[in-house]
């Protein structure tokens, strides 16, 4: 979230760091649409983000918007579970 650029650029950066290759336009499009949906979901229901961010060992950063952080968490979770991420071919 602290990377420069718009959400598409941030997603591209994240993809590259998780999968170690550049995302295709198709892949970025899927992720981008999903991220937008979740940004809306977590902005609408303010009770969700605190629950999600309470999970895990490291405390949630205080300088980031927590609703947005939750939406990004739920999106990067997808990248971490890609077949390509969990399998070395």
């Amino acid at each position, binding site marked *: 979230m602290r990377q420069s650029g718009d959400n598409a650029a941030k997603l591209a950066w994240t993809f590259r760091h998780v999968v170690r290759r550049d995302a295709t336009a*198709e892949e970025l499009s899927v992720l981008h649409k*999903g991220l937008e949906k979740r940004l809306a*979901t977590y902005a609408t229901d303010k009770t969700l983000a605190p629950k999600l961010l309470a999970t895990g060992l490291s405390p949630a950063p205080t300088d980031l918007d927590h609703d947005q952080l939750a939406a990004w968490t*739920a999106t990067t979770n997808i990248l971490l579970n890609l077949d390509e991420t969990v399998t070395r071919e």
Partner: protein
Amino acid sequence: MNCNDHQFQGLDPATQMALSRRTFIKGSAGGIGLAALGSIIGTPAFAANPGLGFPNFKPKAKRIIYLFQSGAPSQLDLFDPKPEMEKMRAKDLPESIRKGQRLTTMTSGQKSFPVAPSIFKFKQYGQSGAWFSELMPHMSTKADAWCVVRAMHTEAINHDPAITFMQTGSQLAGRPSIGAWSAYGLGSENADLPAYVVMTSFGSGRPEDQPLYDRLWGAGFLPSKLQGVKLRNKGERVLYLKDPDGIPREVRREQLDELAALNNQRHDVLGDPEIQTRISQYEMAFRMQTSVPDLLDLSKEPQHVLDLYGPDVKRPGSYASNCLLARRLCERDVRFVQLFHMGWDHHVGLPNAIKGQCNDTDQATAGLLTDLKQRGLLDDTLIVWGGEFGRTIYSQGTLTETNYGRDHHPRCFTVLMAGAGVNQGTTFGETDDFSYNIVKDGVHVHDLNATILHLMGVDHKRLTYRYQGRDFRLTDIHGDVVKQLLA
């Protein structure tokens, strides 16, 4: 797009069709391919393999509960009485019987092989007059339901190769297991649960033995979505059924849709069938989040039903509770349910240890038969009860009036069958006076597996899969359906 392209080899025809259609759409209309996703994702995990043509004939058994007794129960103390052995007590096993046959290294160095008659009393039960020892007060009441296969034999002499042989038709690990073969040929009747479910339990006879390996219910070279899914026997049966806090169900659905979209895009590039497995297993896990809590909710089981299985049914992860779950899985039309009860390996201290094992399993096994019958499920469910080999008439270690041990014995052992299509109330096969060699009507492991597949409507010679240039079968190039075991 030709389905025989090399990148599609190893896929079942349904997936090949879905794939080629998908690749065609993507190739011809660049990008619209995504719209075709639903046609793959929306399909039940492996609802059918229409191109394979199974079943080959009308099946007697729609499903099977295979009660594997891991470690090898002693046929001599349970099903195969040899009262005349009392006269031979402590005498050396005659060479005319042993015939120099292979022994394990656990007893091959013994100076003598003293005959150890069973100290347990046998009686005949039911109309059929089947023999059971006093160790099985409940299973013996079902004498007329069992088909006692008394002259089973195997090629393996140690546990893991022997269980692997029973499960896959090969002593060497790597072939698909019988449950995976069944799921491959016959597909699933319930899209919300795996077609092949496995449950393990520890025995009180030898609580620490023997280890089981997940590959025993593996898919080998078949698509790995066909492998058995094991329910845990400690703690939660299935981990992480609940979505994490702060991830509503709709978000979980979105995540899986996007995961599938991205994984499919990668699959278009690589053509790796294991990517399809991952997609379908993520979807199966999503459906299991709903189906498994329903499966495991025993709160509506009435006391009189729980009582059938015995007091152990209340202890999660016990053989008895696994039997109850097996019935519930059957009600949900899960194709292949397999239990593995450990602890039957009684090299020393057999009399005491086998009591523990029978205490674990006897009532629950009989209760399962009763429960299935009351619900009309026994008519189309096949039950198999048995281990990987038998045990020796001679004692391993010191023989006393009350104590003995028995080593592994592959040359004869007993397996029980019941339920759909089985010739109930019969005993088939004979062993010699020492229960050492087969005298009549031997049934090899390949024969048993061929017969099991036959009861499920599958010709074991036609259930093949091409891998590395060769067509493989569960029964390799062997196996005959044993007609005498069929109703």
